[in-house]
């Protein structure tokens, strides 16, 4: 039995005034405190009617036991007295309101002594156990105790007491379940410890603001690495509290302040408070971070946010974060807040939840010209992971304007980069860094994504700058690691192919085509690109293009068909098209075709000669044959020059290299040959001579006509071989040279030029020089030449040529004089 009871209480108990039920209760109380040896017990026991077992611990009896203010006069005794209640309160014998109030008054008074070392730990534990039991009791004692504890804890004027109570409440798990309020009508209400209207009413005079203010004051108080008020109140946080914050934004900012202070002083995160949420899943404390300008602390708070907060509530905060990084000339980069927490906002999230505004931020921070090296390295790494890695060349999806936003190349060009009139200079800034710089990789993706829209977004000059930029970048990929190269090069080629659609600039086409040598991954796309340009059936053919085809035939051949592979397509498909093109070509094209066929056949021959030792080379000859079949079938017979046809025919007579494997081709060439050599009236030299002999008759009646002029021309061209210099024929012309000149001027078959040339050759022939036996013929030629050429546009060049020949010293004096006379005649 506790000494206090023995000395102070039991002697005072008056059993006489007790009811029978009370007596039973008293007996139990006495048994509980182990006072069965006392007189009171034995007397009571005797007086008790054992049949009645009802127990009624009345207010009166309670006061007998508990209400002894005189004991509280001595703090030591008072505390021991309270401690001795334990067995009673554990068995449901609680103090009445009066005793409880007295107890609270005593505790207020003796709190400092209570926490002093004079009180043993056992005693303290006992007392707190009593308090706990009282708190949980459904009695009038519960609420006064609860209020006492809450008030003392929130009263940080006496920090030591507050902390003493907090620590013990935590140890003994007081204040974490419920308290009971007995109303005036004796009804009993039990409330959980939850911050709600009832709580505020009971403990803070129904004044929320008062509570919040004290709460914020209390938060940063406590010891480092030890539990404190926050931990005690942790179970109290409620949706009501979140609602209240939600309706009072200015209090949220104070809460932020308090939480930051708590982090500084106690080094604790307060994440539960920070992540308070309303019943509608709204996180007022986190969402409101977006409503103010950030400091380093806010980065910290944001970092401690719950990971399931809906994206929409974080949107503004992300923008605030960017603003914070940009503030003060970017000096916040150096803070620990960024290194330890801010960076993680960028590294832990996927691009999908971050705002698109990060892209311009990145370009500003890491621009090759203005970026600070330490920062660019960090940011480039971050943004490479965020925006480039693992996306297969696609641009990321991000957040923009409160919604998911598919970032597109066109959007970036139009809205983000907004380079209007200095694109060239702008791109130049990036070129030097090469493709290894993530900004360039991102730009490549931008241009790749924009695709054909590039043509609308940029002016032709800008497109050109862009092409040069991309080409240069492509070559820088030679020195970077394989993954970067293989990721970016195809995108570059694709973007270039989109940019370079206008046909005609084959220098640029070749530059793009040449990129195939950088890496195998772009061989196909480059070749396809070149093929699309060199064989573009939507565009009309040009002579240059046809020339290019057969120039590249060489590459195709020498490289064993590895290079210029589109030449194969030309050979397989373009024969008819080329023929149609030349058929409709207005001017005489035979010279061009002669050169072209000559070149084609040169390679046919090479291929044929190599056929035995190399199958690949041999097949080229077959492709050429097929091409020629297509081409010559369609081509008009008059388009080829006679010499070309002759050449083709002769080629076929060759032993090794010929077309005999393709009978069809041979037939076609024969058809050409027949057209030029058989159907046209052919005059062999013998028939000419015959004609010449017959033409002697009645020469004065000869009219100047095609036949006659050609006869003379043939004589002029062939007199050396034939040995006949028909002076008479020329004399006729000499007499009627004005008519003849007029006739030649009207002739459209080119006889004019041939005639002049033939005459010119006779002038230089030493056999016709003055003093020889054919002098007459020579003189006639000179005279006729002077007359015909004089005044024509060729006169000057003939004169120059003759003069040079005359002065070369190769001719006799007579001929030199004669030639100079002609020159004078022409120049006169």
């Amino acid at each position, binding site marked *: 039995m506790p000494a206090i009871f023995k000395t102070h209480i039991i002697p005072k108990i008056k059993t006489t005034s007790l009811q029978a039920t009370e007596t039973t209760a008293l007996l139990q109380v006495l048994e509980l405190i182990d006072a069965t040896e006392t007189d009171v017990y034995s007397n009571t026991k005797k007086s008790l009617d054992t049949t009645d077992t009802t127990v009624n611990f009345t207010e009166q009896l309670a006061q007998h036991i508990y209400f002894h203010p005189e004991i509280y006069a001595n703090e030591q005794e008072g505390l021991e007295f309270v401690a001795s209640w334990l067995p009673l309160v554990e068995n449901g014998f609680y103090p009445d309101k009066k005793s409880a109030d007295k107890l609270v008054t005593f505790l207020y008074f003796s709190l400092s002594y209570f926490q002093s070392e004079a009180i043993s730990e056992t005693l303290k534990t006992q007392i707190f156990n009593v308090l706990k039991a009282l708190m949980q009791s459904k009695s009038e004692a519960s609420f006064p105790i609860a209020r006492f504890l809450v008030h003392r804890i929130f009263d940080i004027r006496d920090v030591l007491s507050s902390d003493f109570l907090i620590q013990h409440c935590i140890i003994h798990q007081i204040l974490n379940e419920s308290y009971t309020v007995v109303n005036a009508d004796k009804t009993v209400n039990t409330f959980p410890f939850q911050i709600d209207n009832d709580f505020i009413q009971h403990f803070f005079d129904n004044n929320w603001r008062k509570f919040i203010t004290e709460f914020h004051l209390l938060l940063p108080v406590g010891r480092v690495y030890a539990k404190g008020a926050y931990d005690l109140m942790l179970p109290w946080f409620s949706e009501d509290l979140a609602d209240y914050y939600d309706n009072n934004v200015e209090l949220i900012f104070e809460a932020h302040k308090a939480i930051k202070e708590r982090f500084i002083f106690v080094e604790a995160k307060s994440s539960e408070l920070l992540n308070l949420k309303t019943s509608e899943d709204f996180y007022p404390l986190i969402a409101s971070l977006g409503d103010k300008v950030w400091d380093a602390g806010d980065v910290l708070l944001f970092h401690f946010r719950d990971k399931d907060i809906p994206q929409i509530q974080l949107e503004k905060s992300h923008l605030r974060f960017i603003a914070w990084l940009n503030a003060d000339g970017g000096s916040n980069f150096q803070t620990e807040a960024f290194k330890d927490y801010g960076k993680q906002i960028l590294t832990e999230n996927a691009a999908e939840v971050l705002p698109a505004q990060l892209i311009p931020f990145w370009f500003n921070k890491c621009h090759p010209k203005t970026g600070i090296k330490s920062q660019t390295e960090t940011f480039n790494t971050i943004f490479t992971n965020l925006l480039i890695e693992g996306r297969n060349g696609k641009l990321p999806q991000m957040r923009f304007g409160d919604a998911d936003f598919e970032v597109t190349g066109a959007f970036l060009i139009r809205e983000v980069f907004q380079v209007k009139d200095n694109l060239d200079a702008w791109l130049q800034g990036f070129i030097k860094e090469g493709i290894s710089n993530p900004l360039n990789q991102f730009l490549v993706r931008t241009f790749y994504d924009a695709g054909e829209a590039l043509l609308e977004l940029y002016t032709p000059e800008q497109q050109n700058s862009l092409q040069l930029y991309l080409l240069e970048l492509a070559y820088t990929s030679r020195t970077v690691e394989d993954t970067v190269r293989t990721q970016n090069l195809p995108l570059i080629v694709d973007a270039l192919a989109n940019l370079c659609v206008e046909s005609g600039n084959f220098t640029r086409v070749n530059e793009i085509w040449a990129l195939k040598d950088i890496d195998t991954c772009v061989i196909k796309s480059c070749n396809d690109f070149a093929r699309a340009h060199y064989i573009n059936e939507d565009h009309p053919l040009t002579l240059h293009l046809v020339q290019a085809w057969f120039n590249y035939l060489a590459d195709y051949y020498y490289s064993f068909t590895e*290079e210029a592979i589109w030449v194969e397509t030309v050979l397989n498909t373009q024969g008819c098209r080329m023929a149609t093109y030349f058929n409709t070509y207005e001017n005489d094209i035979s010279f061009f075709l002669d050169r072209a066929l000559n070149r084609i056949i040169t390679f046919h021959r090479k291929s044929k000669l190599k056929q035995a030792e190399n199958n690949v080379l041999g097949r080229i000859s077959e492709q050429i044959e097929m091409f020629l079949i297509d081409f010559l079938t369609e081509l008009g017979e008059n388009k080829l020059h006679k010499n070309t046809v002759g050449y083709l025919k002769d080629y076929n007579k060759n032993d090794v290299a010929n077309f005999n494997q393709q009978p069809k081709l041979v037939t076609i060439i024969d058809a050409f040959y027949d057209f030029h050599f058989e159907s046209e009236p052919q005059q062999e030299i013998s028939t000419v001579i015959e004609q010449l002999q017959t033409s002697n008759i009645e020469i004065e009646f000869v009219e100047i006509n095609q036949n006659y002029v050609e006869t003379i021309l043939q004589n002029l061209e062939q007199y050396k071989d034939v040995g006949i210099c028909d002076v008479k024929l020329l004399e006729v012309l000499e007499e009627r040279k004005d008519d003849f000149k007029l006739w030649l001027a009207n002739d459209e078959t080119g006889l004019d030029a041939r005639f002049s040339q033939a005459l010119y050759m006779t002038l230089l022939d030493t056999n016709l020089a003055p003093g020889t036996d054919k002098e007459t013929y020579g003189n006639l030629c000179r005279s006729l030449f002077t007359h015909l050429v004089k005044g024509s546009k060729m006169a000057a060049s003939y004169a120059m040529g003759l003069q*040079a020949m005359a002065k070369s010293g190769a001719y006799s004096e007579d001929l030199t004089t004669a030639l100079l006379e002609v020159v004078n005649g022409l120049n006169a």
Partner: protein
Amino acid sequence: MTHEITPQIQDQLNLSALILKKNYKKAELTTWSGFDLENEMDVKQAKRLLNVFGIKSGLHLRNSLQRYETGQMVSHNFDKLALEFRMMTTTDFDAKYNAEQNPRTKAIYKMVWKYRFILKTQKLIGYEMAYYVFQMRLGHVLGLIQTDEIILRLEEANHIIKSNFSNWGEFHRNVCLGGEYVLGATEQDVSKFPGTETLWECYQRLHIQHADWFKEWK
């Protein structure tokens, strides 16, 4: 796969020996490219040369070869000038020569005048084809062209050269003249940068080092 260099191929490769030596003094003439592919400095030098010629890829290389083969690089211009000069009298030429201010153009005039008849058919084909072979060897350093293609093109180049010239001396003279035409006068010049040699100097040295190579015109 790299082919072996047979005596015949070596003979054809030698067509570019002079140009190769001129451009890279340490060149090893008995290899495909003349450059040591294992040696970083050698490869760097080859890259530098390719850069000078504007060759960035196989396509650039082949286009360049095409230009040399068709005479667009040197012969066309030479021939145009020679044709003009062939029509001129000595007095005309003197007038034109004296009217020209640029000493380099003057030197070219002088040279073309001298060879206007002699090189009427050959032009500067020897020089161009030597470059043709040289650039193939250069391109091989970076893998822009493989040896089987080189062999195929060498045959053609060899054919063109052999049908235009009748011995090594004549061919090499053409190469030297081409160099003179393109690069300007190549007289001994003590003020020049040390370590560089004129084509004529390379020519002399080459004939001392590999005398037996240039005797037989196969």
